[in-house]
C-alpha cells in the first residue's frame, strides 16, 4: 500500500535531516563546516528559485537582490536601530516579500527573454543601490558589526550549532516545496508552465499563481539573506550582485529543473566546487568554467536527471541478467 502523499514526503525529509545532522561528524575540520553552512544557505534560495523556474517556468536573473534585501534589512535593523534579532529577521523577510509583491505584477506579464531582462535589470538596480547608498549600507566596503544569531535566549556561537539550525531550516524548506508541488497550487503552477492558455481555460488564475510563486521564492531568498547576515556578521554588495543571481540560476539548472532534490544537489555542488578547485590556484576559474560547460553538455537534465537515468540503466541491466 502506498503511503499518503504528505507522509511520504515527511519520511524523506526526516531521512534528509538525519543525513544533514550526521554530516559534520564526517568532516575533518571546522572549515568544511562553514562551507556546508553556505551550501545550505544557497540551497534554500535554489529550492525557492526552482519553484519559480523549474515548476512555473519563469526565469529570474535578479534573485540575488532579494537575498541582499533580507541581509541588509536585518543588518540595519539590529545593529543601527538596536532592534531584537527576531524583529530584524522578520523585517528582512518581509522587505524581500513586499518588494517582490510590488515588482511581480508588471514584471511577470513579460515572457522569455523580456522577463529575463526585466528581472536582471531589477537585480542590477538593487545592487547599485547597495553600493551607492553609502550612509545606509556602508557602500562597497560593506556593513560590519551585525550581531551573531541568538534566538529565545540561545546564542548560536559555534559553527556547529549554526549548521544544525541551517539543517533544520533547509529540511523545512524542502518539505514545504515537496508538499506544495503535490498540492493543487503546485499542479496549477506546472500546468501554466506547459501552456498558459490551457491552464487558464481550466480555471487557473495565471497572474495570481505566478505572483504567488514569485513572492514565495523571493521570501525564501530573503530568509537565506537574513540567516547569512547573522552568520557572517559582515555583508558587502559584491555578494548580492548579478554574478550571484546567475550562479543561482546555474544551481537550479545544473541540479535539474523541476526537482527539489536536484536544486539542493546543484547548490551544494556549486558552493563546494570553488573550494575544491583552490589547489589549482590561478587556473581554478578556467576549471570552473570548463566543468560548468561540460556538465551541461553531458548532463542536459542536470544532476538529478543524470542520476535517475543512471539508476534506470542499472535497473535494466539487473533485470536482463
Amino acid at each position, binding site marked *: 500500500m502506498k503511503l499518503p502523499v504528505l507522509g511520504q514526503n515527511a519520511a524523506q525529509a526526516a531521512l534528509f535531516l538525519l543525513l544533514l545532522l550526521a554530516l559534520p561528524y564526517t568532516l575533518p575540520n571546522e572549515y568544511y563546516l562553514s562551507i556546508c553552512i553556505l551550501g545550505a544557505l544557497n540551497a534554500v534560495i535554489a529550492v525557492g528559485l526552482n519553484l519559480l523556474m523549474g515548476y512555473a517556468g519563469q526565469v529570474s536573473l535578479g534573485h540575488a537582490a532579494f537575498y541582499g534585501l533580507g541581509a541588509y534589512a536585518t543588518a540595519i535593523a539590529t545593529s543601527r536601530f538596536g532592534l531584537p534579532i527576531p524583529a530584524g529577521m522578520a523585517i528582512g523577510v518581509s522587505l524581500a516579500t513586499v518588494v517582490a509583491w510590488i515588482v511581480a505584477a508588471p514584471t511577470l506579464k513579460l515572457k522569455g527573454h523580456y522577463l529575463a531582462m*526585466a528581472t536582471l535589470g531589477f537585480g542590477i538596480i538593487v545592487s547599485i543601490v547597495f553600493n551607492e547608498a553609502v550612509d545606509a549600507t556602508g557602500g562597497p566596503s560593506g556593513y560590519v558589526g551585525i550581531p551573531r544569531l541568538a534566538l529565545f535566549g540561545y546564542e548560536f556561537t559555534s559553527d556547529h550549532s549554526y549548521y544544525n539550525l541551517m539543517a533544520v531550516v533547509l529540511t523545512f524548506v524542502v518539505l514545504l516545496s515537496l508538499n506544495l508541488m503535490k498540492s493543487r497550487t503546485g499542479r496549477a503552477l506546472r500546468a501554466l508552465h506547459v501552456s498558459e492558455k490551457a491552464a487558464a481555460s481550466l480555471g487557473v488564475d495565471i497572474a495570481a499563481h505566478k505572483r504567488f510563486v514569485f513572492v514565495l521564492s523571493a521570501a525564501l531568498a530573503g530568509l537565506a539573506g537574513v540567516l547569512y547576515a547573522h552568520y557572517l556578521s559582515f555583508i558587502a554588495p559584491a555578494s548580492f550582485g*548579478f554574478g550571484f543571481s546567475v550562479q543561482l540560476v546555474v544551481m537550479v539548472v545544473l541540479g535539474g529543473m523541476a526537482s527539489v532534490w536536484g536544486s539542493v544537489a546543484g547548490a551544494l555542488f556549486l558552493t563546494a566546487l570553488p573550494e575544491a578547485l583552490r589547489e589549482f590556484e590561478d587556473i581554478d576559474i578556467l576549471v570552473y568554467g570548463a566543468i560548468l560547460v561540460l556538465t551541461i553538455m553531458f548532463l542536459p537534465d542536470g544532476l538529478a536527471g543524470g542520476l535517475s537515468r543512471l539508476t534506470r540503466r542499472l535497473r535494466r541491466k539487473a533485470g536482463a541478467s
Partner: protein
Amino acid sequence: MFAGAPQYLVSGLTQGAAYGLIGLGFTMIFNTTGIINFAQGEFVMLGGMLSVCLLGVGLPLPLAIVLACLATAAIGGLMERLAIRPIAGAPAINAVIITIGVSILLRGGAMLAFGKDTHALPAFSGTAPILALGAAIQPQSLWVLAVTLALLAALKLFFTATIQGKAMLACSCQKKAASLVGISVARMALLSFAISGLIGATAGAILAPITMTAYDVGMMLGLKGFAACILGGLGNPFGAAAGGLVLGVLESFGAGYIASGYKDAFAFVVLLLLLFVRPSGLFGKAGVERV
C-alpha cells in the same frame, strides 16, 4: 541648467554607439539560433585586450586591431562549433548556461594571458578635442560613431546583397523552411557567432581608447548590449543600434544631471519602465503576449 547638455549628448552617443554594436552582436546570434549569448561582452573585452597585446608586440595599430577582430571572430566560430552545436535541441536555458560557462572561460583565460591590469589603446587620430556647439568632442568619439555607421551599412549590404546574408535572414524567419530550401542552418549559426565576435571585438577596440579595457570589463558591457537590444526590440538589428544610442544618451544625462554614482542604474530603470508599458521594446513588433 542646460550647460553641459551638448557635452553629455556627445559622450552619450559615443558610449551608446558601442552599446548598439554589442546589442547588434546579440541580435545576430539570437536571430539564427534563438540563444542569448552571455559571452558577447567577453568578445568586446577580447577586441580591446587583444589589440592592446598585439600593439605591445610591435604591430602597427590598424593591423593590431584588424587581427584582434579576426581572432575574436575565430573564437566566436570555435565557440559555436565546440560548445553550442553539440547541444543542439537542448532547452534554451541550457544553451544560455553554456554561454555563461564560455564567458567565464574567456574571462579567466584573458586574466591568465594578459594579467589584471587596466590598459588603454592610443586614440586613433590624436586627442586634440574639436570644439563645436559648446562641446569638446574627442576625435575618438567621431571614430566610434563613424565605425558604427560603417558597420551598420556593411551589415545592411550583407543582408540584402549577398546570398549568405539572405540565407541568414531566412534562418531567422523560419529555420525549418530555410533548411528545406537547402540552407545549412548549422553553417549559418557558425557564421552568426563569427560575425558577432567580429562586431563585438570592433566595439571593444574602438572603445578602448576612451573607456580603457581590462580582463573583466566584458560583463557590464555585455549587459548593456543585451539591454540595448531589448530596448530596441529583440531580433531587430537596427532597433538594437538605436536602442544602444538611446541607452547611452539616457545614461550620460542621468549621470550628468542627477548622480554619477547611479550612472549604470538609469539605463536599467528606463528599460524596466519601458518594458512595463511597451513589452516588445521601442521598435519591436507588438506581438509579445501579455497575461
